[in-house]
């Protein structure tokens, strides 16, 4: 029972981080349909911004989160403006190749700038864990969970309830119809890509005191983010968030009660089973193709 609770707490924290990765990619991959292989690199960018501000410039961690979000947002906007503007986003090959190029350039630039040796970002909180009975959790993990939940709710309202979110969804459902009703389609494209990128960067910064920061950390993040978006259902924000928590819980309890050696395999096995039973993902409605 004690172990069960500890696994549940761990799963919640991991799930919150997966959910953040998932909703960032859902904006770009799920809604815009850009196969963004550079998503993990934006996550890495955020982590390095945090490292630069906290460890090198001795600034506080919380400001570094805002700086990381801003850096990710601006970088995302630039990528969309310079590389994706005017491209046919329906042409998966072309866009995918561009994003693979961005990924390779970003990863190598990080390597050139920071070197291959991993960096550590100190936690802004006390190192001593908080203990609730038999469950122990560090203050930074609780902060990550809280921050992630706030971001998830904020993005849910932004996309599902706000006028901007409605414009976004309208644009990617039918660009021409959105134009006719007065939506600035080009602005929406830039904004959506920038928001998704900013979210990836802030996730990287948020997690930097939990893990180590290195130029290849984005590879695993990208892989997980795609798995989560596909599991939750393309373009479904709540689905991506729930998909993140679902994957984390499968990994956590699978490792705890089945085998740690197959921790990642169990997650992907469940995704395969979901794809067989519900090809549209857990939380998305079926859509017409072609």
């Amino acid at each position, binding site marked *: 029972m004690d172990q069960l609770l500890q696994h549940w707490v761990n799963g919640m924290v991991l799930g919150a981080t997966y959910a953040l990765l998932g909703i960032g990619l859902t904006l770009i991959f799920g809604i815009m349909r850009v196969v963004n292989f550079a998503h993990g690199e934006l996550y890495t960018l955020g982590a390095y911004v945090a490292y630069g501000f906290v460890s090198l410039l001795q600034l506080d961690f919380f400001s570094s989160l805002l700086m990381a979000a801003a850096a990710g947002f601006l970088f995302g906007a630039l990528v969309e403006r310079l590389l994706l503007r005017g491209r046919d986003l329906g042409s998966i090959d072309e866009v995918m190749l561009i994003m693979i190029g961005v990924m390779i350039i970003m990863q190598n630039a990080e390597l050139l700038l920071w070197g*291959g040796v991993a960096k550590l970002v100190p936690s802004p909180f006390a190192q001593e864990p908080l203990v609730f009975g038999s469950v122990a959790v560090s203050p930074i993990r609780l902060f990550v969970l809280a921050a992630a939940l706030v971001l998830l709710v904020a993005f849910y309202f932004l996309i599902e309830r706000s006028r901007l979110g409605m414009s976004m969804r309208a644009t990617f459902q039918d660009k021409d119809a959105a134009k006719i009703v007065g939506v600035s389609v080009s602005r929406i494209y830039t904004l959506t890509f920038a928001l998704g990128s900013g979210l990836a960067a802030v996730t990287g910064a948020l997690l930097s005191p939990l893990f180590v920061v*290195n130029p290849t950390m984005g590879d695993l993040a990208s892989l997980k983010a795609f798995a989560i978006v596909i599991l939750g259902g393309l373009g479904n924000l709540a689905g991506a968030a729930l998909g993140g928590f679902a994957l984390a819980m499968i990994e956590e309890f699978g490792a705890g009660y089945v085998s740690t050696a197959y921790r990642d395999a169990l997650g992907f096995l469940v995704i395969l089973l979901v794809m067989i039973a519900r090809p549209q993902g857990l939380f998305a409605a079926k859509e017409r193709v072609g």
Partner: protein
Amino acid sequence: MWNSPRILAAFALAVVLPAAALAQDTIKIGISEPLTGPVAASGTYVTDGARVAADLINSQGGVLGRKLELVIEDNKSNPREAVNSAEKLILKDKVPVMMGAWGSTFTLAVMPKLVEYGVPLLVETASSGKITTAGNPWVFRISPTSQMEAQAFGKQLASFSPAIKKVDFLSVNNDWGLGAATEFKKMLAEHGIEVGRMETMAPDATDLSAQLAALKGSGSDTLIVTTGVEQLTLAIRQAAEQRLSQRIISTGGSFPEQLLATPGPKGYTSTHLVFFAPWALDRAQHPEVARQYADAWAAKKYPFPGLTEGFRGFDAILTIAEAIRVAGKAEPEAIRQALWQVKVKGVNGDIAFAKEGPAGKESGQNAPTIYVVQLKDGAVTVQ
């Protein structure tokens, strides 16, 4: 008589010839190390150590009157890339000898290429027994096998208080981690110590909370962790976060150097089997060599904690240089033969190779010194 094409040709020769002569004047040593990827820290430090040794040897006139030239390739913490890097070093750079490839998985991947092309490899880091028992006569290892480490640790068991009664394992899921767990289990069984849970982690995993939560209720008093520097740092930090009651002991020479500057919770202690303890240079078998290495490392402004891994590269290059000197020429077969005769005073201690593996195809294995150090609140004590 001196028309312009001839002048141009003479000018070109004047430029090219000295460069060619200079290129011929160096002796190339190929290096394949993980400079990027999950174990980049270790690979970078080992490569730095190799640079320190090469500079030192070159400042003393080089070997056979020629300077050493390190040709360094990044194997990207990936066995496939390790093979690519070895082929590039052998076929394009034509190195007569190599150092590498950090870790059993990468080294085992490279080994068939050594036989194919006939080039010796000085293995500076790798602990799987298979490396020297597979019947590859081109392999010479200066680092200890997991079995040697387990035996050395077995002699220290009595020094732990409270006594070690039950041990869990957390190992990276590759040849190194699984091999070390097998050897340590065997040793513990010989000492009548119970073995509890055995958990593994993918080499690039950063969140180890599930593994640690599974170990939390195991009832063991000790957890033996085998992985690279980065993952070891994460394991110790996350174990402290989850208040794991087991004492952590790491194997394989990895030292969580990041915890020196950014320690975990106060009072949390971890124990590490390392092959060089820069905190106690006088304890080295050859303190003068250890000091020379540490001073040259500091002069290059490399980070102090990297010394614990960097010495591997330093000792490897000293050994290769000595083999070239003994061979009298920089040719692969001559260097291989000479490696059997070398006796080097290294940072770790005396380096010499004993034969291991099937008769007629033996590999060389050195018997290095192993130190036990404790890390608590960012301070280290050598036991």
